[in-house]
């Protein structure tokens, strides 16, 4: 066992593995690129739907059912199906990943908007805001912490699933696992796995830091605060500052 550990350390520190098109930096960049691409597309799909469902309450049952059913879909099955139907290339696996990443984003957005204190929404409406203003200046800022939680889950899920994508001829850190498997090169597999685990933990820490720095005013997670916000809104003068402050 110790020989595996030393060999893995040797693999991880071998300069040859840190350069070239199959080097760790390139694989890491590919991994992050796929993850980023998936997140952009999934956000563009899930957030508008979540905002619509959360704001109007229409299609709530359908959205929850679809999100639940998508969650049960096996990652690997969806990937292989897309590749078999659409061929090898960058986009088929990416679309499969998008389908898997939409549920947490959709659930987070919808739950975030739905959890905003009704008093805040009513007060915003009573102040003469249009529906869009109510959504983007009252509901959206208050829902942001919960929405961000869904986003974090989605990013981690995407990072995990992108490592499976290497099975289907794409790059990313998962390549080391499957190349190592074929070659029975266990140190390479273990090294790749440690890199993936390290990447996931590092990204999660960064996302947590962003949350702490920029999103700490979580109205929806702290009932006292949201009541405070409602009181602020009924008083016209601080209301403007509260709402605008939240949007920034």
């Amino acid at each position, binding site marked *: *066992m110790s020989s*595996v*550990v030393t060999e*893995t350390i040797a693999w991880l520190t071998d300069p040859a593995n840190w350069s070239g098109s199959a080097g760790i930096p390139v694989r890491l960049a590919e991994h992050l690129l796929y993850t980023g691409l998936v997140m952009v597309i999934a956000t563009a799909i899930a957030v508008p739907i979540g905002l619509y469902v959360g704001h109007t309450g229409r299609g709530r049952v359908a959205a929850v059912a679809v999100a639940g*059913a998508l*969650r*049960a*879909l*096996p*990652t*690997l*099955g*969806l*990937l*292989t*199906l897309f*590749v*078999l*139907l659409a061929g090898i290339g960058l986009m088929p696996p990416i679309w499969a990943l998008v389908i898997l990443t939409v549920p947490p984003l959709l*659930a*987070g957005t*919808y*739950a*975030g908007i739905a*959890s905003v204190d009704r008093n805040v929404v009513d007060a915003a409406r009573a102040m003469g805001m249009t529906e869009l203003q109510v959504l983007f200046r009252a509901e959206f800022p208050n829902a942001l912490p*919960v929405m961000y*939680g*869904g986003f974090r889950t989605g990013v*981690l899920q995407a*990072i*995990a*699933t992108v*490592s*499976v994508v290497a*099975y*289907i001829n794409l790059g990313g850190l*998962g390549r080391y*696992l*499957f190349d190592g*498997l074929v070659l029975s090169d*266990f140190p390479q*597999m*273990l090294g*790749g*796995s*440690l890199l*993936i*685990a390290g990447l*996931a*933990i590092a990204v*999660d820490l960064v996302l947590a830091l962003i949350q702490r720095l920029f999103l700490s005013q979580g109205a929806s997670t702290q009932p006292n605060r949201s009541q405070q916000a409602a009181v602020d809104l009924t008083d016209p003068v601080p209301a403007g500052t509260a709402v605008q402050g939240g949007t920034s």
Partner: protein
Amino acid sequence: MEWFLANSEQVFSLAAQHLVLAILPMVFGVLIAVPLAQVARQNRGLRSVVLTASSLLYTIPSLALFIILPTVLGTRILDPVNVVVALTIYAVALLVRATLDAFDSVDEDLRQAAVAMGFKPFARFLQIDLPLSLPVLFAGLRVVSVSNISLVSVAALLGIGNLGMLFTSGLQRDFVTEVVVGIIAILILALLMDAVLVLLERLLTPWTRAAGSSTASGADSGAGQEKTGPAAAALRLSDAQTSGGAS
């Protein structure tokens, strides 16, 4: 369909392997998470260690964990034990948090009433805290069950037998039907497991269904009132979980 009929025996045996790999971690998960949560509740330092460690472990992608574990455990890479241990880790990570939340939200009045009635700590845990946290525990278990059944298929990439084999062999042979059969079989398994868990929860928490009738007659008799407390608390717990689980 024809392919499925011709190969149904193989599909069923893969499904059986799949189920075992998905269910064992749930059982171990409960057996580890509940005592751990109970111990962590009484110790602030341990509590934050447990919560941090569980969220850290939960972030490690499954495929990576399947490969890291053999080194830690000294098992072979093809050993199904790796899958069971990996999924148990995820199950514990998720359940310990849910159980801690559930224990926290048990009504303090109820707990003090139990102490006043002479419940010893262990009896109080078994008869008050644990039953009242069952709805939350089951909500967590349902999440674990769905994700386990999906994650087990990833282990097929390493050659560990389960329904995921249909995906890898379907891809190699360029055979869509096999992949579709695999996806449908896994969805059916997930639905079945969910139904079993819902049923089990109903059997184990009869008071949640009596809530509607007993709240109305709650003030009438002492026995009725006794029921109202736990029922209301359990309802609150399940509400708390639905909002928490959705986020």
